């Protein structure tokens, strides 16, 4: 299994532990990653607000690099997934736009074949659809039987369904549940698991942003979760790094919910040392997780 790897800006910035754990976990699973070192930001849905064509061209640039490698593209960020899928859909539907974008890419010797398209998959989708849950269960070295984990998806990997391949894969909004159970952990579900973490408005309306995070974290803690697992580093940032501030909006006392990146959860179940997966590089201590392994 070999993929062109788009790590996203955050795994190279505020969540370096995501990058490290992804590299380590993929290696253990036998997934080969060819990193797009020269890839650019997807725009996170912000650049498209300002100029849709710019955002589409930026994404096409990454797609073209993956196509040149003749590899499907893997990402580790729900936001990247949604933005990439949306750009793909626009470029496919609008050949005039694709031609214009390719004109811009040509100076760099790149070309994105929008008609042929490109498989773009978050690590979560790769785990379930390409690697397979049965195979995952077979390669586990340390099933996480003592751990109670809740899912947190991140909006862009589950909405809007029509552009995220739900026609072909209708269970994509259940994959985190599947994976949590496959690694042997006890699944904790709660109402806010597929809602917004609040990150996009953190600097615009902090109170609302923290209230959103606080609601989901409170529900998860009340439901008995030792931790949450997310395929989105932006959700991780709002739920983890902002958790001490969110606590004052929480419905429960003593809010303390560690937030694991998806590759960290898988890595732990594969028996990789927690330190190597940088589980200690979170604002909220992962002690609750480690104590239950």
């Amino acid at each position, binding site marked *: 299994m070999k993929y062109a790897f788009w790590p996203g800006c*955050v795994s190279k910035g505020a969540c370096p532990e995501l990058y490290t754990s992804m590299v380590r976990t993929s290696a253990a699973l036998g997934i080969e990653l060819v990193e797009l070192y020269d890839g650019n930001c997807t725009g996170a849905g912000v650049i498209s*607000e300002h*100029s849709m064509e710019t955002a589409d061209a930026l994404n096409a640039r990454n797609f073209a690099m993956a196509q040149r490698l003749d590899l499907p593209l893997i990402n580790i960020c729900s936001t990247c997934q949604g933005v990439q899928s949306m750009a793909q859909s626009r470029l496919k539907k609008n050949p005039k736009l694709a031609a214009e974008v390719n004109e811009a890419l040509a100076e760099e010797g790149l070309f994105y074949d929008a008609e042929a398209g490109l498989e773009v998959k978050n690590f979560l989708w790769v785990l379930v659809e390409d690697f397979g849950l049965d195979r995952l269960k077979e390669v586990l070295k340390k099933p996480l039987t003592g751990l109670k984990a809740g899912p947190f998806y991140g909006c862009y990997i589950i909405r809007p369904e029509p552009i995220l391949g739900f026609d072909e894969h209708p269970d994509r909004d259940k994959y985190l549940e599947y994976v949590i159970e496959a690694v042997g952990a006890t699944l904790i579900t709660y109402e806010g698991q597929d*809602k917004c973490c609040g990150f*996009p408005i953190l600097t615009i309306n902090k109170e609302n*942003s923290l209230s959103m995070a606080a609601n989901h974290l409170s529900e998860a803690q009340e439901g008995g979760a030792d931790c949450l697992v997310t395929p989105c580093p932006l959700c991780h940032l709002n739920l983890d790094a902002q958790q001490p501030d969110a606590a004052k909006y929480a419905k429960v006392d003593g809010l303390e919910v560690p937030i694991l990146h998806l590759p960290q959860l898988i890595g732990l179940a594969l028996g990789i040392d927690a330190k190597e997966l940088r589980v200690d590089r979170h604002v909220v201590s992962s002690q609750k997780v480690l104590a239950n392994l």
Partner: protein
Amino acid sequence: MQERSPAGGVAVSPTTYQKQGEADRQGCETGTARKDLLMDVRLKVKRFDPEAPDTSDRYQQYDLDMPESATVLDSLIEAREYQDGTLAMRCSCRSAICGSCAMRVNGRARLACKTQVRTLVEEGEEVVIEPAGNLPVIKDLVVDMAPFWDKVRAVKPWLQPSGPPPEREYIVPDEAMYGLNEVMNCIMCGACVSDCTVLEVDKTFLGPAALAKAWRFAGDPRDDAQLPRLRELSEPSGVWDCTRCNMCVEVCPKDVKPMDQILKLRAAATHAGITNNHGSRHTLAFVKLVGGETDLIDAAMGTKASGRLDEVRLPVYTHGRFNLIGQMKDLPIGLRMLRAGKMPSPFHKPIGGIKHVKRIFKRFAEKQGAGS
């Protein structure tokens, strides 16, 4: 209330009866084919009666025999007409056009009349029906739409042309209206408002329906109040408070894509120069840091376009380059992240192909706006 016969029986209620084709009807009357056309439907409906002694959450179960094609609304009407006349709900057209029957079905806002039971669950599995969210409940499935209409009115949902009216009608080219096609489909059912994740935490937010309606007029070429509209909508509780979660896009039964309309308003506001707010500054900073133009002050701050997001500088620029007080507010979180080893380096290295990224930005700079 009329008694119904047990499942598989031949008695058919008038409501159900009317929905059968002629062949079915014959089947009903002879009591043969009818049985095969029915399915078991189990509704679990959230009840609320403000006058009851106990107003805590209560769910009531209704077991029904319904035609295979039955919608959630058909089933609710059946329950009300033949099992429980106290069940309160709103409905009218049964054709997804009046917008009366928006409610939560299995946790998501839907039009009850547009949702077939068999598309939701296997036969006999429970369908959970709750009133629309984010609005006060009057009784059972009936919510108070007053806050919804107040917000729609607040965006002045009427055309405000300037100058003397034309002799005949206002004429605009077809293409100028294309961008409004989606929002003109809105039936004001409130499904988007029901599931809006921002309204869940802040009832002052104008919300997806009203903001989409605002674009209906701010984006209309005949309207001459675009600038004051955009100024007002850029205030707190307006366009920048949307968290872009796509929930309204997902639940809208008429494909209005309210969030996309909000993004068009944001783009129009920023391009119109209404930038003295955190939302607009955030967008402009994002663009600048990834591939946009920088000036001398930026250079002095060590800021350059890098092709990737500079997470250290983005919040600084969002507060405003000279807003030191605002920037200081982020200090505790910065220190917290530093302690955890999550603080990105302030020396942000551009990617190898940065000149190409900048070129892309320049090339498409003229074609701005999500609405373009």
